[in-house]
């Protein structure tokens, strides 16, 4: 290795360090805040690693404020909206891709780009008339606004690139349309379905705006619950940071574990929820 390439390596190493440090330092600081007692969070200059860790911030959050109930709400809303989106969106992506129905793709794209709030006024009124308020159904249904376009959009892109020859061969062999989809197209599309599933899951889990309008005290999802702690119930930083970390930890773990699928999905569909 010449001195020049060595120098280049070192330069590159520092460049990478500089660009990832805002992300890294933020999450390290978040962890630090969540593990400090009130007195350590209130000192100036701030300290990164305290002498004693305030594990009680976590136990306090997990045991109080009906946190586990909110966690359950989040799981049901996100799980329900994601599974329904897969059931509806995977076949739709297949049909749209095979029919080359570009106008359908345009509707999906515009839906993706519409601000979540503009769906909220009419659906809020609709849910009131239907008497659904106070249950989890309004949130599960409105989260479809986020999850369905993501799934359809990603699946259109995926089915467009899977080979049609196998399907045509199966049809000539006498397979029905449904058999072709179920036994030929679907198995090949598995990686695309995984990507759609992960992204729909994350953007539904993170959603905040639907919850602040549609959730009652009992039906809050975690992002709404954490926001409410900030405004009403909790002012100390330690437990707040602990709650924030618990809410976003599943997503962060998923991001690092499945980063290849996430990167592929985001660059293909350039999606964002809400």
């Amino acid at each position, binding site marked *: 290795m010449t001195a020049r390439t060595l120098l280049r390596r070192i330069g590159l190493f520092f460049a990478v360090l500089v660009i990832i440090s805002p992300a890294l330092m933020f999450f390290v600081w978040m962890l630090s805040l969540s593990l400090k007692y009130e007195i350590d969070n209130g000192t100036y200059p701030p300290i990164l690693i305290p002498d004693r860790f305030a594990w009680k911030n976590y136990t306090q959050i997990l045991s109080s404020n009906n946190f586990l109930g909110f966690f359950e709400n989040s799981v049901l809303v996100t799980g329900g909206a994601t599974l329904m989106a897969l059931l509806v969106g995977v076949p739709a992506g297949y049909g749209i891709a095979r029919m080359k129905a570009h106008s359908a793709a345009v509707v999906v794209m515009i839906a993706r*780009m519409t601000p979540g709030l503009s769906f909220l006024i009419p659906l809020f009124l609709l849910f009131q008339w239907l008497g659904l308020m106070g249950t989890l159904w309004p949130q599960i249904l409105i989260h479809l606004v986020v999850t369905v376009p993501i799934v359809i959009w990603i699946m259109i892109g995926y089915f467009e690139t899977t080979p049609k020859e196998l399907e045509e061969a199966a049809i000539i062999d006498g397979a029905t349309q449904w058999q072709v989809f179920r036994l030929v197209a679907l198995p090949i599309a598995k990686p695309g379905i995984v990507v759609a599933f992960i992204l729909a899951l994350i953007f539904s889990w*993170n959603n905040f*705006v639907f919850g602040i309008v549609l959730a009652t005290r009992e039906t809050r999802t975690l992002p709404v619950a954490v926001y409410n702690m900030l405004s009403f119930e909790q002012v100390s930083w330690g437990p707040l*940071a602990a709650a924030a970390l618990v809410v976003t930890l599943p997503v962060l773990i998923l991001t690092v574990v499945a980063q290849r699928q*996430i990167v592929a999905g985001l660059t293909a569909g350039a999606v*964002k929820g809400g």
Partner: protein
Amino acid sequence: MSGAGSALVAAPRRRTYWVFILPAVVTVGAVILFPWAFTLWMSLNEWKLGESRHFVGLANYVRLAGDGRFLESLWHTILYTALSVAAPVFLGLIAALIFNERLPMRGLLRGIFVMPMMATPVAIALVWTMMFNPQLGVLNYLLSLVGIGPQAWVYHPASVIPSLVMVETWQWTPLVMLIVLGGLATVPAEPYESAEIDGATSWQKFRFITLPMIAPFLLLAAMIRTVDALKSFDIIYAITQGGPGTASETINLYLYSVAFAYYDVGYGSAIAVVFFVLIVVLSLVLLHLRQRSKWNEIGDAA
């Protein structure tokens, strides 16, 4: 013979694909198309929740044109969006150039870099709020280390929008990076080899080969950023709720107040329609620019 056969197979096939799309048509109709139509109709009515409704035609739209708070929020939205496009696109381009190099542990590093945009926005906003705190926040401490005095960050009308843009930039630079990185993967090696022979400098190679080749991807990233920044809500709402006063109130936040704080759903719908039209026009441009999916990434990305 074979031509006639495939025509016979193809004709019914076109029709039967509708079965696959039908459930999605019903769902999209209920949760997306119905709200669009209903919002349009509501915007033609004067309607506060709990009061009676009258048809007023375009009166809500006329009122919008003379609403000082709306016009102010429009200006905030434009400023916020312009800054939230420019900064991430510039920084994302630099980050993409760095990530395009051969790196050890590239996957892990990219995973860390991407974390801000995947993390729950409210959770992030909460921690930024603590960091912005003028007395105890870590940001003013970091500034003091390089000899800069304390700032008011989101607590002063003059600095609130730049501070929020900083959060937005931190959060969304990774998306620009990913899109540009996808573009860099399509650039062939040959032009660089001939430039090398001609004795081009690194800057010249970047300026005259790389930049023109990835320009469509930069444009795509800028368009996506534009649409997303226009409708940004979570970060602003959770950190400032549009404050101090209305200094960081964008159209989306004003819409929220009108519809769900004042329950003026007719007027709120008119705001939603105008906002919607603004975004759809930009989306159509975006769709026009859409690149074909890069699905081979799943198989062989590092």
